[in-house]
């Protein structure tokens, strides 16, 4: 076995030099929180570790934008922004594990509040990326409304390090809500789906609406707002839900929610997207050990034995949905991707244009490309 070189650039110029001066195939890594996601990496000649590429470049509190180096852990950024009453409206589970900005973009991650705030794609307003030939390209900028040129950030979103190395990311920020409340209702999935539909039909404006199951099922409904208005809104929400306990103190149900999306040594994790109306039945069909189901977003994360992953991909595809492997237990053979999208020739053409020698992330999209 050959020894793999690890490169640890600390700024943009060093990233560029590392890419340009290192021959062969490269893998990009940050905090390593998604190392077992998507397709398994083929052997590479060097690993580009961006964990030293950290820190805020510019924070414009009045404009509610921030740019930071891609290796910055999001939780560190959140701490820094909190002083200004601002935050990045993303609550992906692995932020707590130290996930970096670049990693969160590259893996297209999101959490329950994507119901309102979207995924990283909706928060990123600019990127600087290093291509396989050392080209440094930038798109977007520091203004939230911007349609000049192609949105390269979107192209990198979900690319798993196969199209370029993210070096710097500009994000739009939101004010930290004055107050947040979560109502918890014990309910099996079908009943939770009915309750969720009622909440969505009314003026309750939940920011997250998730069913979680690790044996028994619970519906979690989160709302946020002002100190003055929230108590009355919680009361109205409780009425439509026909009850519900308000989560308080150390018993944070969202921590358990996050835990369920992480997988375990034995279980694979599959991320599923499908129309909310078909999602509960779809999740019920899959032999899942644990699940979180976004009843408004149409996004579910399910834990299941690795040997049934391929079949699950097929079921999701048949239901018009999309799926990807989010965690592969050590040594397990589980398909990363389901049937390819119709736009696969475009994806391949983009890969050829931006990384003609196939240097970045070999295997990540196997067998698609």
């Amino acid at each position: 076995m050959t020894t793999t070189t690890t490169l640890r650039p600390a700024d943009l110029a060093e990233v560029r030099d590392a890419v340009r001066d290192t021959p062969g195939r490269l893998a990009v890594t940050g905090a390593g929180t998604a190392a077992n996601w998507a397709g398994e990496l083929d052997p590479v000649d060097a690993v580009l570790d961006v964990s030293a590429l950290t820190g805020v470049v510019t924070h414009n509190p009045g404009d509610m934008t921030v740019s930071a180096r891609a290796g910055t852990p999001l939780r560190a950024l959140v701490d820094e922004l909190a002083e200004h009453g601002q935050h990045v409206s993303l609550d992906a589970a692995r932020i707590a594990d130290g996930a970096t900005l670049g990693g969160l973009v590259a893996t297209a991650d999101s959490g329950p509040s994507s119901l309102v705030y979207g995924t990283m794609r909706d928060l990123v307003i600019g990127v600087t990326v290093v291509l396989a030939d050392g080209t440094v390209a930038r798109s977007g900028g520091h203004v939230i409304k911007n349609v000049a040129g192609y949105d390269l950030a979107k192209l990198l979103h979900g690319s798993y390090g196969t199209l370029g190395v993210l070096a710097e990311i500009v994000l739009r920020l939101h004010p930290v809500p004055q107050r947040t409340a979560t109502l918890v209702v014990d309910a099996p999935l079908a009943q939770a789906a009915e309750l969720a539909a009622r909440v969505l039909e009314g003026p309750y404006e939940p920011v997250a609406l998730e069913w979680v199951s690790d044996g028994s099922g619970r519906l979690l409904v989160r709302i946020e707002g002002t100190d003055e208005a929230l108590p009355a809104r919680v009361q109205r929400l409780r009425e439509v839900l026909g009850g519900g306990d308000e989560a308080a103190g150390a018993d944070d149900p969202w921590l358990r929610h996050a835990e369920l999306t992480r997988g375990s040594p034995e279980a694979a994790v599959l991320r599923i997207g499908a129309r909310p109306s078909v999602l509960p039945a779809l999740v019920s069909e899959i032999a899942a050990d644990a699940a979180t189901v976004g009843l408004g977003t149409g996004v579910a994360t399910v834990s299941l034995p690795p040997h049934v992953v391929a079949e699950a991909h097929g079921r999701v595809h048949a239901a018009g949905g999309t799926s990807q492997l989010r965690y592969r237990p050590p040594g397990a053979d589980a398909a990363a991707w389901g049937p390819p999208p119709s736009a696969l020739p475009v994806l391949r053409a983009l890969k050829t244009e931006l990384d003609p020698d196939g240097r970045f992330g070999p295997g990540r999209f196997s067998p698609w490309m």
Partner: protein
Amino acid sequence: MTLHGGVRQAFERVLDPADVLSDPVKCRAYECDGLTGYRVRPDLVLLPRDASQVAAAVRVCHEHGVPFVARGAGTGLSGGALPVADGVVISLARLKRVLEVDPVNRRAVVQPGVTNLEITAAAAPHGLYYAPDPSSQQVCTIGGNVAENSGGAHCLKYGFTTNHVLSCEVVLPDGSVVTLGTDTNEQAGPDLRGVFLGSEGTLGITTSVTVRLLRTPESVRTLLADFPSVASAGDVVSDIVSAGIVPAAVEMMDTLAIEAAEEAVHAGYTVGVPAALVVELDGPVEECDAQFELVKAICEKHGCTRLHIAGSPEERAKIWKGRKAAFAAVGRISPDYFVQDGVVPRTRLAEVLDRIAGMGTDAGLRVANVFHAGDGNLHPLVLYSAAAGETERAERLSGEIAELCVEMGGSLSGEHGIGTDKACSMPKMFGEEDLATMHRVRHAFDPDGICNPGKVLPTPRLCGERPGKYKPHPLEETGAIERL
């Protein structure tokens, strides 16, 4: 050169021959979009009736190397739908059906020729609406909104077209049909839908669009406030944001814009005041009421000279009618005008408006301002008289204002696109490597360069050349310059 008869026959084989226009007089109607200063008469105009005819027409273009330009209602203001002389225009005006409204999943599937407002009209019976709302929403089409990633007043809180389109069926420049995006935000692999959105018709033609619908807010509160200066109105915007309030919309108008709008629609604006703000909050009634009091207090703190709160839906509609009619209304106070579209960081609004005023004075031209203050998206209207020979001066001033926005840390465009108008300004905002990378993306979708050539990117490399299929510049042939 014009398209030879064989190509025309090929189009007539895949479309009804009556839907292939070649009469120069009829084709002239398609020679420009809302940017009327640039005109090119296309050789042929195609009027497909469904998605399969669009794909068939594009396949003919691909086989014969014919450049094509897709066109919706033609309301674009940056020349994005400017035809190519030896090419065809593919009009999507006949693809105007709402294919599905799915209230359970809060989404709709529509053809590209459906207008922005028609989507909301189709969704309204279900208590839903489509959030992005360009001022031209009564006439602009969703296909054009997708191409330009158009915005509007309510994008500050709710996001832009790219945040509300789940997927697009797209005819690629080789005539193949693909779906970009999915039924949810979750996608397997890179977000091609996001790259396509805002690509200004240069990566393919969308034949159906699946959009996200939002629940109509329970409560909407709107106020109109006058201020003694643009700076004080700008301070109000900053304070609202600092207070942690994300308004549904914050729009600002200056003296000239107010005068024009009031003259046109009698919305109740105060003629003569230096600046007016339209602030709208929406959401659950409790939140709206609490935050609205705070907004009123902020307005008063900054010397608001008049505060008018819409007391009924009719009054609210009137306030908005004035704002949305402002562009057209400027025609009442000037024989001609250019609409510019640039973005600056919100905190630099007062500074940039001051600079614009100075530039207008230097050029001897009036500039009216009506814009989305919440997100820094300016729309300076450069007023001029073509008859008085001011066109060139006005065009130069308009371009300089766009580039000033870049100098201020902003963008050349917030919603109208780069199109033909500002392709040559792109190097002011992006470096050579940035633009070369965008070329590579474009090449992946359109290797033959036949899909809306000459738009967005400064291609051919030397601006001033005629848009069309790539031909080496004479200097390139001599080796004096290099194409990236």
